[in-house]
């Protein structure tokens, strides 16, 4: 299997502080891979490095054979690797539908000047975006709130909208930053099902950073565990659960009590 995404010896140092050190792993196409680790282990930094928000000090990220580390976020997104955010990040004063439509930016074929003068290509684009936005809204079950202002939405819907924004860019790899944070059991199970559908119905490769161990064990094909910025284990959920280094890293922490 040729990996779709490769993280190779990625290291980030902020002055004397090492956020992560020499991390390597491969992601197979249409795989659901979780990155876990205690707070401050360097998971979010790793995501930022993949999505182009942070350039690795050394090492590189390869997507489909092309180096993407060092590119700005909009170029990484253009290539098909898109990140959703830890906080519920949306465009607050737009409606749900407007949020999704504007996020189709990458797919526009008309130039900005074309949009200004209302060229036929621009009109075709707008029509296509509207239709595709409605598809995504239906896929995520947001029909009832499509014309709500995003700032009025409850937490669960915000998370779904964040995902809709990500989907609108038509990524091949989607990075989900703590998709289950702050959710109760039922909400988490619904989100787990949704993430599976992203892969099964839309053919996406999913990378996620998460603290919720039961959810991670349930959803992941493979897991990478990071502690103090270093990769300490990689494998299937059952391998990770049995790995002595992982158990040690989590020992005494709340996550261990919940998850393992």
């Amino acid at each position, binding site marked *: 299997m040729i990996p779709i995404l490769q993280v190779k010896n990625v290291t980030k140092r902020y002055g004397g502080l090492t956020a992560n050190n020499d991390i390597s792993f491969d992601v197979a196409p249409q795989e659901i891979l979780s990155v876990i680790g205690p707070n401050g282990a360097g998971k979010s930094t790793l995501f930022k490095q993949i*999505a182009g*928000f942070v350039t690795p000090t050394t090492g590189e990220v390869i997507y489909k054979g092309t180096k993407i580390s060092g590119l*700005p*976020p*909009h170029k990484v*997104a*253009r290539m098909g690797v*898109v*990140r*959703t*955010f830890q906080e519920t*990040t*949306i*465009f*607050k*004063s*737009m409606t749900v539908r*407007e949020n999704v*439509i*504007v*996020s189709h*930016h*990458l797919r*526009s074929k*008309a130039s*900005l000047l074309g*949009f*200004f003068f*209302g060229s036929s290509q*621009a009109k075709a*684009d*707008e029509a296509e975006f509207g239709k595709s936005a409605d598809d995504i809204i239906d896929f995520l079950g947001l029909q009832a709130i499509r014309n709500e*202002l995003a700032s009025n939405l409850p937490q669960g819907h915000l998370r779904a909208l964040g995902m809709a*924004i*990500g989907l*609108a*860019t038509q990524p091949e790899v989607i990075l989900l930053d703590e998709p289950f944070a702050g959710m109760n059991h039922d909400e988490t199970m619904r989100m787990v099902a949704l993430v599976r559908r992203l892969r099964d119905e839309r053919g996406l490769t999913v990378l996620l950073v998460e603290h919720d161990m039961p959810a991670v064990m349930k959803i992941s094909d493979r897991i990478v565990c990071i502690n103090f910025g270093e990769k300490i284990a990689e494998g299937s959920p059952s391998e990770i659960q049995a790995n002595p280094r992982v158990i040690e890293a989590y020992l005494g922490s709340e996550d261990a009590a919940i998850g393992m």
Partner: protein
Amino acid sequence: MTDQTQSIAQGRSSTTRLAGVLAFLLAVFVLVPAFIALTGRWDFYYTLTSVALLSVAAAGVWLTFYIGRINIGQGAYALTGGYVSAILITQYGVSFWLTLPLAGLFCALVSVVIGLPILRLRGVYFAMVTLVLTEVARLTALALPVTNGAKGITSIPLPGELSIFGLTIIPDFATLANPKLAFYLMAAVLMVVTYLVLWRIVNSRLGHLCRSLQQNEELSASIGVNTAMLRVLAYAISSFFGGLAGAIFVAISQSIYPSSFVVQDSVNFMLYCFLGGLGYVFGPMLGTLLLYFGWDLLSVAKQYQLLIYSGALIALMLVLPNGVLSLLDRKGGRK
């Protein structure tokens, strides 16, 4: 069903919008000149011309607000545009009508060079840098030989004839019986075109992307928007408007000095936008009209003019933080 009702509602609102635009054009191009001819208040032409031009510059400031940046530096571009036009006319004999777009383009170019580094700043940091820009422009005009220092450039000829293929489109202003009216009409046309362009920007994809930038730059980048490019583009358009307005002001006063546009003007442009409403395309136009006219009318209060004016401004911002135009929304029962 919903689509149908939506399109009906849209059709209705576009009819009212068209009626509104027509009424506005009628007022600007027919009613105002008729009113002035009847009352003989020719001085109003000067005031209204100023309002139209200031609102063009304010439209630019509004666009930078629209991408989430507080711009207190439009005076710098108005001054630059004015000097470009004045220098081209007096030293190179270029027609005023050609210097007009050139002044705008020159300002847009300068703003790209300045904007690339400073548009990375946000909030108060960007605002402070732009505040300094006006002062930098003034000092540059004082220092450069081509701008003739503190003496400025004076006795600039009035706009000449504009003709295409021998056909006169605009007559020589010097031959006109009433150049005040001509300047008014010119400024009004420019204002209408500017706001048409601005309205089109805001309602096209470009405007939607600007809004995404205003609300969340990081998310905007992660959905693939080249945020650096878009910021510079919006700032360049903004400065283009500033340069245009500056060039026409120079043509009217037939002179320019380093102090023709100062920090106070830059602050005013920002205030016009605030007062009119940052969420409304026509906010800066209304804001300019109210503030400029308000200031003029308050001159009857003599030494209390500034006191009353500032008091009214503070009160307005407290009562209507989203601008005067937000009154319309309240009346319409919208949130």
